[in-house]
């Protein structure tokens, strides 16, 4: 297997970038753990905080640790993760729909 050296070198990751991502991820971890540990919110509100901070932290990891963006180097990785999200929505959403429908029909037969 030959490695040509005329390929453009990739964009070098920086310590500053990783530290930025780490600090943001740390804050977004401490917030939900703090609310659960000290129980200062209603259950519904705490679940919303957990969900929102989780989605934000996923974004932080994708941006600063996995370096996803629309640059030439990362474009196909980004497109393929978006496609995977589509597949995920179809499979998870479709299965939930199916389970829910089965559950409702089961209840109808039972009564």
């Amino acid at each position, binding site marked *: 297997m030959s490695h040509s050296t005329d390929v453009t070198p990739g964009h070098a990751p920086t310590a500053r970038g990783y530290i930025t991502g*780490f600090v943001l991820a740390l804050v977004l971890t401490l917030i939900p753990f703090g609310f659960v*540990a000290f129980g200062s919110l209603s259950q519904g509100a705490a679940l919303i905080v957990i969900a929102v901070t989780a989605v934000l932290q996923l974004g932080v990891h994708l941006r600063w640790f996995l370096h996803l963006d629309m640059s030439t180097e990362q474009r196909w990785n980004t497109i393929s993760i978006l496609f995977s999200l589509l597949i995920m929505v179809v*499979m998870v959403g479709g299965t939930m729909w199916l389970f829910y429908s089965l559950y409702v029909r089961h209840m109808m037969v039972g009564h």
Partner: protein
Amino acid sequence: MSSNAHDLNSIRAAARADTEVNFGFWIYLMSDVIIFSMLFLVYVDLSQRYAGGPTAADVFELRGVFLETMALLLSSLTFGMAMVNLHQGQKERVVIWLGVTFVLGAFFLGHELSEFAHLIHEGASFTRSGFLSAFFGLVGTHGAHVFFGLVWIVVMVVQIKLRGLTPPVASRLARLSLFWHFLDLVWICVFSTVYLPGVLQGVAA
């Protein structure tokens, strides 16, 4: 090993995300995303099916989960430092940061395995209820990934020691980097879907 500009350029080119092998590995990770999404779905569906056995609030311990989370998050930073040094051709520093990452990953896995052993000892095994089957299935699959990540780190340290920072080694490190950060990404979903809502049930009850 001397690192002149030519070496650095070939190392950086091999570590690019859009080389065929690195993109191919990314596609594998995307298939793992689908597998994990279905495991999460199974867990959410079964998370209240205790079959008269222990509930989520009974078996989850927030302090331990917090330590595991911190270890894995910190290991993402230390792996990042290994990649920064790879791009600068600093062989010894890459090995040191990989070593730190290994220790943090091993702490995470050791903690998880002792949690599993404790649960099984208490009679809260994966055969006890639908909830525990789904829990061990999901968290165990993630743990298995971490195990193979640790094996991979050892293999890469040996390769760096034997061959130095060659383009093939840099290319493999780029894939291990994707794998390791991906594991941390899945863990965010694990503590947000499994542990925090589980502990919350106990607080509300």
